[in-house]
């Protein structure tokens, strides 16, 4: 009985903690002039949302956030694919060193990376551009795609490729028909992490973008200092929607690789 009870308590806690923010945002986003001690808003209105969506900046922020996160995760996947395969399948001298080279950027604060890159990118003309911000996002995303994919490749059986080769398949066919299919779930999870890391990145965007690259975290931060709870809540809802959709779409792969590293997020 007590076991039952504690299970229910834990379940309630788990779902409660996850649902509360969404409910909270939804209520605040449709309120106006809702001050203490009123428990429910005196007036319900969609005007915070209307304001948010009619603001050119919001759509621009959404667009820039999506493009940067998509570009950063695709680039990460492409660059880390050969590296992860090697790290996962081969034993070679210096493997530890290579592993360390990818590990160190994950513990160095984005703050330090952003401050240094800021000057370098200014000199080569990348500061304040979407390309510059995307490249900067690679510093935190790349290690995670490499680690996730190399753990996938560590369980990968190369014999399928050998067989295909013996049956006369060419390398391109092997890549698309065998390799890609076998590692696809891992690829999706790695891509998801890269997307989420880039999506939530504030400091690197601020320091490299110099205010000209406007992603949703930038807008949310400025809205938080703007102090209007309705606008903050509406923007927060908009901000979590794409991750929610992406996670929902990839949920079945997440189950298989759920414990992969998901920090910095």
């Amino acid at each position: 009985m007590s076991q039952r009870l504690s299970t229910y308590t834990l379940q309630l806690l788990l779902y409660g903690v996850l649902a509360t923010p969404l409910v909270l945002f939804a209520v605040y986003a449709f309120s106006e002039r809702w001050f203490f001690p009123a428990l429910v808003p005196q007036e319900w209105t969609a005007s915070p949302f209307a304001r948010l969506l009619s603001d050119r900046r919001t759509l621009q922020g959404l667009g820039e956030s999506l493009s940067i996160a998509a570009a950063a995760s695709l680039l990460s996947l492409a660059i880390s694919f050969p590296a992860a395969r090697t790290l996962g399948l081969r034993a070679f001298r210096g493997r530890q060193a290579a592993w360390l080279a990818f590990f160190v950027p994950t513990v160095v604060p984005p703050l330090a990376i952003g401050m240094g890159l800021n000057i370098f990118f200014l000199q080569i003309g990348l500061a304040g551009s979407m390309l510059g911000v995307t490249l900067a996002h690679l510093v935190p995303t790349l290690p995670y795609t490499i680690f996730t994919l190399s753990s996938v490749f560590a369980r990968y059986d190369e014999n399928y490729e050998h067989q295909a080769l013996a049956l006369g398949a060419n390398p391109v066919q092997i890549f698309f028909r065998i390799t890609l299919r076998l590692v696809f779930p891992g690829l999706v999870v790695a891509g998801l992490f890269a997307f989420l890391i880039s999506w939530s990145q504030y400091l690197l965007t601020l320091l490299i973008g110099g205010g000209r690259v406007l992603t949703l975290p930038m807008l949310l931060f400025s809205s938080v200092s703007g102090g209007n709870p309705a606008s903050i809540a509406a923007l927060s809802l908009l901000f979590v929607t794409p991750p929610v959709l992406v996670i929902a779409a990839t949920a079945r792969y997440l189950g298989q690789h759920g414990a992969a590293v998901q920090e910095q997020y």
Partner: protein
Amino acid sequence: MKRYLSLLILFSFLLSACSGVVQSRSTTFDLNDWDSVVNAAKGQTVNWYIWGGSESINRFVDDFYGKALKERYDITLNRVPVADTVDAVNQVLSEKEAGKDPGAVDLIWINGENFFTLKQANLLYPDWARKLPNSALVNWENPAVNLDFGNPVDNLESPWSSAQFQLIYDSARMQPEDLPRSYTELKEWVVQNPGRFTYIAPGPGGFQGTRFVKGALYEISGGAEPWSAFDQATWDQWSPQLWGYFNEIKPYLWRQGETYPKDENELHSLFANNEVDFSITQAIVGAGALIEQGLVPETARAFVFDQYMIGDFNYVAIPANAPNKAAALVLANLLLDPELQAAQILPENGFGLGFGIDVNRVTDPEDKALLEAAAQKLGQAATPAEDLASSLVGDTAPQYQSLVEEGWRQYVLQGQ
């Protein structure tokens, strides 16, 4: 290791070589020939770095200036919202550090402290403000206009609007006759109503807090005049009493002064939720624009002390490495346009700062009527104009800014 390093350097050179040739758009104009400026500006995009913390100001800028620029001059406005003006200044400084010209910033809504920084570093586009056609409407003889934080404007920036420090109370909670009218009275009120008052932490992003502290400095030292020029001895003489005042009220503040709101909006939120009884604003419409935005209750009203309410003009400046100087000049001129000046003070437009021009210099009868009508419509949430005028004083010399901010952190916040 050395080999890798040289490889790295080589690569960065290659990268910079590739991207160095991106843009070299040169549009020539002669500042003394305004038509040439307008022609050069045609089709340009002006990157205006502007404090983005207020949604209603953002909307006002886009709706009024953005539209007018496009329609009248074929210029695209790119409003770049920054959390603090310092961010724009940093952008210019970083560009200087990296030797980048043209840079990214065309126009900055600047305050006295940052103007001082850029002026000292020689990073401002020189000799333009009084050459704008609309600059004839500006009263350049007024020391409040030709000095910014006591620092000569020197034709390096052009005014946009005016503002004055005020307090806000809720007329549903308090009566006008119960309001404190000086720092001395405020202290009594705070002691009698523990936990019901706080002010914005002075510092970057909290310049209203800095003003609040400076006002106390004026009252304690008995006048604003000594502070218009920098003198270390004067500071050393009065600053201990200043920190004394704030440390004496500290135990009676909201949360016993262990922390303070970071910016104006955080204080508005405390005020709106009945956590404290006063807020702070700079707007000439008082609480009007804040009510419009739903940040404070509709019963909120502005008021001032009898003396030492610091007011000043807001300016825009152009960095020396601005990529689109012509468009920036056109925008700076547009800001002084009588029609838009009238629009900016109306509470419903959400900007709410005062005129940058002198209404008496406007000759066009239609414009003049427009401006005078706008001045009548400030609404009941504004401080009466005669109260504003009688309590108005100028800001201190710029050197006091960091002394006040750092001193407050050290002696009041950290209590050392």
